[in-house]
């Protein structure tokens, strides 16, 4: 008998452990009758402060709902994947734009269409294109923070060099050659020599003329501008190996390796952040998302704004991360009430006036009163409106492949591997040679058309 008693003790210990591990589900109602919903996001810095204000305002005006924010720093996908695997997803969360459609189809996200139809506050019509994640009559998310690419520059450097600043008109941006020529004039080494001088020392550059931070967001619009791209818009063929695409990749690489006007890409991580470099006159111009304008604003610095340069035609991308509800949510009504609040730009106005994001609603670009609400401040002075408004309203900005192409997130690894051979090396590998290593078989297996 004694033997069994030991087993019994062991067994009960195991049970205690296991119940301890199982944990409790999310979305519990607290004792005072309030429904608690979790809102998970990756906000940091100014975005975090703005979000906190907005959520606090919501909590104050809604006596029956309490929104708990979870700010995840670092690997967001890792965190959310683990929560999903554990069966404990948040109620509402940011979802990376490359995941939103796929997760919707996998049955993780809630279709927002019925909620929109019933809503009095927000309608689906007024959104700028690309903010809603629509596919086959379902809506898997609605962005609240669109972004587009802008050419930022240091105004003084241009003035000192006696040069006209880059074109702010997105219909007629600088051509790539104009961009490179200006960069050459702005680039100076520690001895004051330019790349055109024989004594120029490319290892000791004091001011870089230009920088294209290598990544999907910078390369995609440039590729499109030369009728190239990663994959065709129907998501059926690879385009990164087309001559048009190769030309763009080679010219971007040439900035660093041939013209010596840009930092070597793999060394960029050892340099200060680009906005700081521009402010310190270490960098003349660079392409980045409009979110960098918030960083400039926080640092109290006023950069110049221009349209990103073009190859054959003006082009840009605009996208927003998904703002989505999870099917696992136990309080969908409350979750939608919160989403509805956040989807009204008025309620999160400071996000737009602080220049973290640009608004989601068309009327906020066209209606003068509303426009004033977010651009009538020092962070949107100079050419800001001239650059951003036509980009967003006149179809210059298109949805990036990350949003429209099925399985693009899985393909990106292979694209990065090939482009890495061009950009991460010492400039000895040509674009043609680098892209020849592209694992086209793998990508072809993943090609499965486009959403919509």
């Amino acid at each position, binding site marked *: 008998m*004694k033997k069994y008693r*030991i087993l019994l*003790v*062991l067994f009960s*210990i*195991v049970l205690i*452990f*296991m119940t301890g*591990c199982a944990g409790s589900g999310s979305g519990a109602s607290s004792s005072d009758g309030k429904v608690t919903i979790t809102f998970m996001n990756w906000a940091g810095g100014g975005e975090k402060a703005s979000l906190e204000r907005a959520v606090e305002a919501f909590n104050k005006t809604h006596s029956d709902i309490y929104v708990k924010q979870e700010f995840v720093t670092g*690997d967001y*996908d*890792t965190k959310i*994947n*683990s929560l*999903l*695997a554990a069966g404990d997803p948040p109620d509402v969360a940011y979802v990376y734009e490359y995941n939103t459609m796929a*997760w919707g189809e*996998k*049955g*993780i996200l809630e279709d927002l269409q019925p909620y929109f139809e019933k809503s009095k506050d927000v309608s689906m019509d007024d959104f700028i294109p690309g903010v809603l994640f629509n596919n086959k009559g379902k809506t898997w998310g609605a962005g609240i923070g669109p972004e587009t690419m802008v050419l930022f520059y240091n105004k003084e450097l241009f003035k000192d060099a006696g040069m006209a600043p880059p074109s702010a008109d997105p219909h007629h941006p600088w051509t790539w050659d104009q961009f490179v020529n200006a960069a050459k004039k702005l680039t100076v080494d520690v001895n004051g020599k330019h790349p055109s001088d024989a004594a120029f020392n490319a*290892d000791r550059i004091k001011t870089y003329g230009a920088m294209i931070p290598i990544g999907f967001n910078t390369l995609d619009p440039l590729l499109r501008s030369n009728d190239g791209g990663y994959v065709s818009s129907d998501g059926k063929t690879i385009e990164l190996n087309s001559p048009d695409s190769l030309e763009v990749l080679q010219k971007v690489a040439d900035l660093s390796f041939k013209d010596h006007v840009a930092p*070597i890409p*793999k*060394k960029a*991580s*050892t*340099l200060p952040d680009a906005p700081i470099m521009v402010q310190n006159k270490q960098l003349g111009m660079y392409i980045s998302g409009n979110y960098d304008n918030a960083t400039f604003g926080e640092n109290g610095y006023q950069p110049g704004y221009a349209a990103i340069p073009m190859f054959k035609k003006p082009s840009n991308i605009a996208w927003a991360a998904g703002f989505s509800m999870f099917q696992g949510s136990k309080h969908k009504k409350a979750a939608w009430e919160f989403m509805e609040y956040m989807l009204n730009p008025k309620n999160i106005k400071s996000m737009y006036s602080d220049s973290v994001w640009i608004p989601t609603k068309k009327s906020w670009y066209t209606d003068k009163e509303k426009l004033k609400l977010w651009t009538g401040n020092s962070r949107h002075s100079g050419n800001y409106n001239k650059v951003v408004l036509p980009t967003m309203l006149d179809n210059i900005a298109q949805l990036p492949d990350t949003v429209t192409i099925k399985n693009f*997130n*899985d393909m990106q*690894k*292979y694209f990065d*591997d090939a482009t*890495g*051979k061009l950009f*991460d*090396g*010492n400039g000895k590998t040509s674009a043609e040679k680098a892209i020849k290593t592209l*694992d086209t078989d*793998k990508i072809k297996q993943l090609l499965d058309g486009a959403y919509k």
Partner: protein
Amino acid sequence: MTKIEKKNLAWGYLFIAPAIIGLTLFIVAPMIFSFIISFTDWDMITSFKWIGLTNYQTIFTDDIDFWNSIKVTFIFAIVQVPCVQIFSFLLANLLNSKVKGVSIFRTLFYIPSILPFVAVAILWMFIYNPDFGLLNQFLGFFHIPPQDWLVSNKLVIPSLVIMAMWMGGGAMIISLAGLQGVPNYLYEAVEMDGGGRIHKFWYVTVPMMSPIIFFNAVMNLIGVMQAFNEAYIMTQGGPDKHTYFYLYMIYQAAFKEGHMGYASALAWILFVILVIVTLLVFRFSRNLIYYEAEVK
């Protein structure tokens, strides 16, 4: 079995229960689970898809990173382990000598190994910075041109090895403990025979310490084959995948790309590699190690 023996047995089981349960729940069970999912296509979200050996087949024949990761991990291990072991062993010998303030030196050399790795990594990223880093400034005094350290294909592994040597206090402290156990009469015997310092070191210290050196080296080897933090914090696998270590590849596959089944297969391959490498090390070192208590 007497009654007392039985009772003792019962208490014995009870006392080892927490360890056994912990091992089962947190190590054995996940291992079994990962072995099973290594035969599936699982993205952690939707349900498992049984695909048999496909993951393993893809890894060996059709993975763009696998062979490169194996290569760079082995290169790192082959360079790192001897450098760290020789350095920390010599350092232990120095710190075993009778000089004033030796305990201060011991503390100073031991501190790096107990610092959080992230803090150390950030510190060395500053030291290695090509433009304003401490090391390039220092080399500048000797008119040595600035080096790219962590962003250079050739220098990235040596850079990480130098950092690992700086952090080698753990092996050092074990060696130091061992050195204090080497009996003095052996050194006296060398003196009697007219041997000098080098003889003492080579014919007494090294043989007597060989089990400890071996232990340190094996632990170091297993650790370095699982190098992750360096790649994750300092290099992101770069430049040009020269530090795309095996564990970092597993992490990317599991959490960045969401292929948990595939990543589990990769992890099991690493497990097998580690077992083989450790067995080989044991085999080849058999004649190099002197165990005092061993009966041949």
